[in-house]
């Protein structure tokens, strides 16, 4: 019932979006307040229907109506309210809804604030994107073809009509949902996706404005209105990228904040193109040139959002991304969406290309417009390289069949030189931006930052023993950019701090650049023995049992409880305790690991957690996930997690005991387990003899052959050891018959030695691990009666990560700079509109900016002596 309502609401929203787009088209083509009023009404209606449908979906989720596929797939009744809320956009359909809702809000702002010249055409393009997005979730019934897109209101029964349950009982409702992925149960999911979709929605605005300018042949004014939106979109994308990176770093144990994963690149590339667009628009504003570039970048920024959406949601990235979506049957939809947005952009650009204003004369190389334009071009090239890498499943086919994604080295190698160029150019451009310079005056102005950067770079190179020339140049460029832009900012801050946004972003970017270099100096923190081993591995001196060279260093250390170990030559690390806290999830464990800095004598405690992913696992094969702990420092972080522990092993054993049907599956097969269980004590006993061990005497009386009928499939032969175990103190005795079964599959023989529980001891076990026919002995592995307490250990994986805080600092400065710029540009645009209302619109080609004097009345004092 509610499902039908939701289905209908989304279908109506889809229809409203189509009509709204049509009426915006009429309004833009013929003018007339009436058309636009109808279009606006339809746009509101679309928004209302979408909101209503979203409300219904949220209601279905909160009332646990598991007959709906979406509710079944992403929630369960034990979820906390915040995660039920987040489940609304945890799946593909819901996240598209969130995108549509964000676009609706942006549309409202445009209706309210955009000048009438551009309003209707801009809204037409906004409406068009809505039609596409809505078509993917509407489930709009098309007679003779089926429903359009994947509706979030699909029922389980319609999703899998062939499932036996539904054939027996079409009204079957599962009692419990499959639950939200454990990795998504993190507070970050509340904020990360909404910000990213707000960024996507805002990035539609410059696209719509650029196309509107081509349509209405008003090539200049649009940038004033589009600039704050582009800045806003970039701020949102940056914030979302930061949140995603931080999330990955502190809780997901991806090992860092960035991995060049296609999903990450999907928001990075539009951000880079948005940056290029912002620079092109600023040139256009100041110099009345680069009209083409502004339009091209505005179109590209949005088209890449759609392109990357296509890559990540169509299933095409299948093999290459650890986190891309599975195809929901939207492949053709997404392809069409992408082709149409790109075709409209390119088509209109070509149609009007000859008409677009050309600069009257070529700018000299040492002019702000030329330098800035080159900067925008470099950003564009960086974006292209990243797109190329991300598109390897498609473009890689030019070179090989079944292409894999490129090595991360591909991205690193290309972004490094571009980073150097960008760092150097920000300074030169900023100097030219605020003051006219010739080569000589520029050179003398650059002396200070060059000297400063050289001194700092040389000092840093000697301090950290850097021996890579490319890194040195990169570091120099970063420091140079910090100092150069810093000088500009200080001067600007005194005179006109409202305009400092751009300078602050450049400093932020430069600091970010320096921070990125830290990743090249990540180092696993291990004890001296492992370090020696790793040194030998690096020198190629280590070979494995088969004589092959080992080239993987060991990155973690086993630490026993209360036995400190010196790690990284500097920290005395003690494993203090492990307990099952169940803080956030059932079965969650918390570890207490103390670090003592032997240089300073300071101690601190880190508390990583480990938890079983119960909602994602089948009962027999529970998977475990680690949640690292990070100790943040100004110049370096310590990142650590527990990669394994005796407690986890015991819990796994306990879960397997409680699921006896699964007991034989993994742990019980094969000889390796026997060799490596660190808690077992092994002993040999001759037939007919008795040994003493840990307060018990164990006598091995004889072999008992197992009847073939009792053997599992594939086994060759099986024997039992007839044991008698006597408690030496009380004289009580028990009989036990652990089994040893020799089995084989196609090409290998292996032994199965299932554990027998010791009836007199909790968690005590015995396994029959080997037969030695020559000496008539058997080998038994005991757990629990070796006389010693069970060993408590953890595998500590700790990493020394320099400059992470510097990365965050750079990001925050970028965000702050964007915010300052948005406020300034918004106010500037308002002032401009007011000015136009009082004094009439500026001349048609909008050349209000070529010489400094005419501009000053709008923008205030322009020159800053640098």
């Amino acid at each position: 019932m509610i499902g039908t309502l939701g289905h209908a609401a989304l279908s109506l929203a889809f229809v409203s979006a189509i009509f709204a787009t049509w009426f915006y088209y009429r309004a833009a083509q013929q003018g007339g307040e009436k058309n636009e009023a109808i279009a606006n009404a339809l746009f509101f209606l679309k928004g209302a229907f979408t909101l209503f449908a979203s409300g219904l979906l949220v209601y279905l989720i909160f009332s646990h109506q598991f007959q709906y596929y979406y509710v079944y797939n992403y929630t369960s009744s034990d979820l906390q309210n915040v995660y039920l809320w987040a489940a609304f956009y945890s799946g593909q359909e819901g996240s598209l809804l969130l995108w549509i809702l964000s676009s609706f809000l942006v549309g409202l702002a445009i209706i309210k604030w955009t000048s009438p010249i551009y309003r209707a055409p801009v809204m037409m393009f906004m409406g068009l994107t809505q039609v596409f997005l809505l078509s993917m979730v509407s489930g709009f019934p098309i007679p003779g073809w089926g429903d359009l897109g994947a509706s979030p209101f699909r029922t389980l029964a319609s999703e899998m009509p062939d499932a036996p349950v539904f054939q027996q009982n079409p009204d079957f409702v599962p009692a419990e949902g499959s639950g939200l992925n454990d990795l998504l149960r993190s507070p970050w999911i509340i904020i990360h996706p909404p910000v990213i979709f707000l960024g996507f929605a805002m990035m539609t605005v410059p696209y719509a404005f650029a196309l509107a300018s081509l349509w209405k042949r008003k090539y200049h004014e649009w940038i004033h209105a589009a600039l704050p939106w582009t800045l806003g979109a970039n701020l949102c994308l940056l914030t979302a990228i930061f949140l995603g990176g931080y999330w990955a770093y502190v809780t997901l144990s991806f090992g860092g904040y960035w991995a060049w994963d296609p999903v990450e690149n999907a928001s990075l590339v539009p951000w880079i193109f948005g940056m290029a667009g912002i620079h092109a628009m600023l040139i256009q504003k100041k110099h009345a040139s680069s009209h083409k570039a502004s339009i091209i970048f505005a179109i590209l920024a949005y088209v890449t959002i759609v392109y990357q959406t296509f890559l990540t949601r169509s299933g095409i990235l299948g093999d290459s991304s650890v986190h891309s979506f599975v195809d929901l049957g939207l492949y053709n939809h997404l392809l069409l969406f992408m082709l149409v947005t790109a075709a409209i952009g390119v088509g209109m650009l070509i149609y009007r290309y000859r008409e677009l204003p050309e600069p009257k004369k070529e700018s000299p190389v040492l002019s702000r417009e030329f330098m800035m334009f080159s900067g925008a071009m470099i950003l564009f090239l960086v974006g292209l390289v990243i797109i190329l890498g991300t598109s390897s499943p498609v473009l890689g086919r030019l070179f090989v069949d079944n292409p894999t994604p490129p090595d991360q080295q591909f991205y690193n190698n290309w972004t490094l030189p571009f980073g150097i160029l960008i760092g150097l150019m920000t300074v030169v451009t900023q100097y030219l931006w605020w003051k006219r310079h010739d080569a000589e005056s520029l050179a003398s102005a650059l002396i200070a930052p060059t000297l400063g950067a050289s001194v700092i770079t040389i000092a840093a190179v000697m301090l950290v023993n850097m021996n890579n020339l490319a890194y040195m140049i990169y570091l120099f460029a970063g420091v140079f950019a910090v100092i150069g832009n810093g000088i500009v900012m200080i001067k600007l801050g005194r005179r006109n701090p409202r305009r400092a946004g751009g300078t602050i972003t450049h400093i932020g970017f430069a600091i970010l650049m320096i921070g990125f270099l830290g990743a090249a100096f990540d180092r696993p923190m291990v004890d001296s023995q492992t370090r020696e081993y790793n040194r030998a591995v690096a020198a190629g001196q280590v070979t494995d049992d088969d004589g092959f060279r080992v080239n993987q260093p060991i990155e973690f250390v086993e630490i026993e409880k209360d036995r400190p170990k010196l790690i990284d030559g500097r920290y005395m690390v003690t494993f203090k305790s492990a307990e099952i806290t169940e803080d956030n999830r059932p079965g969650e464990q918390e570890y207490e690991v103390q670090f003592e800095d032997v240089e300073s004598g300071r101690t601190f405690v880190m508390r990583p957690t480990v938890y079983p992913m119960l909602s994602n696992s089948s009962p027999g094969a529970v998977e475990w996930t680690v949640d690292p702990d990070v100790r943040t420092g100004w110049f370096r972080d310590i990142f650590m997690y527990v990669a394994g522990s005796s407690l986890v092993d015991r819990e796994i054993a306990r879960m397997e005991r409680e699921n006896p049907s699964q007991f034989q599956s993994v742990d019980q097969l094969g000889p390796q387990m026997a060799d490596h269980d660190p808690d077992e004590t092994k002993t040999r006993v001759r037939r007919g003899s008795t040994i003493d061990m840990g307060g018990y005497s164990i006598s091995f009386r004889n072999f008992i052959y197992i009847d073939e009928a009792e053997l599992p499939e594939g086994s060759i032969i099986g024997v039992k050891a007839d044991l008698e175990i006597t408690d030496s103190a009380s004289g009580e005795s028990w009989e036990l018959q652990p089994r040893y079964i020799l089995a084989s599959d196609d090409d290998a023989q292996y032994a199965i030695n299932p554990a027998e529980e010791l009836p007199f001891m909790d968690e005590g076990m015995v396994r029959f691990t080997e037969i030695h026919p020559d000496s008539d002995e058997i080998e038994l592995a005991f757990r629990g009666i070796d006389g010693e307490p069970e060993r408590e250990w953890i595998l500590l994986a700790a990493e020394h990560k320099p400059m992470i805080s510097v990365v965050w600092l750079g990001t925050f400065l970028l965000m702050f700079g964007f915010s300052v710029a948005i406020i300034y540009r918004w106010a500037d645009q308002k002032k401009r509109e007011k000015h136009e209302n009082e004094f009439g619109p500026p001349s048609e080609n909008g050349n209000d900016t070529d010489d400094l004097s005419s501009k000053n009345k709008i923008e205030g004092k322009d020159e800053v002596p640098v």
Partner: protein
Amino acid sequence: MRPRLLFGIIGIIAFTTLVMINFSQSISSYVDFEQAATLSGDNIHVVGTWDNSRPAQFSNETMTFSFYMKDEAGNSRRVTYPRPKPNNFEQADQIVVIGEMRGETFVSRDMLVKCPSKYNDATTPDLSGM
């Protein structure tokens, strides 16, 4: 032709050539174990699934995780991985290991675990037990 334009065109051609050459070198091809045995280098990508009929465990002695993986042609080989078992391992419907073949063992230096549910669970719900 203006010199700046000429300069730009040459730059673009050089850039494109360099990028494409570098790109073609940094990608490789997904193969199966038998093909992997004939290839050299340690950047061989093999796609497959976890062979859960055989043991998989982490060894504290050698600090490696080893398991059996079945490639798309159905060959099952032992695979070693120099880190603890990755998240989502059991749940993965596909595993990509990157490394080289040494005799009958695939020594991986990296592993991608592909789960349908990392963000979006499109697996068919297991309704049999209900």
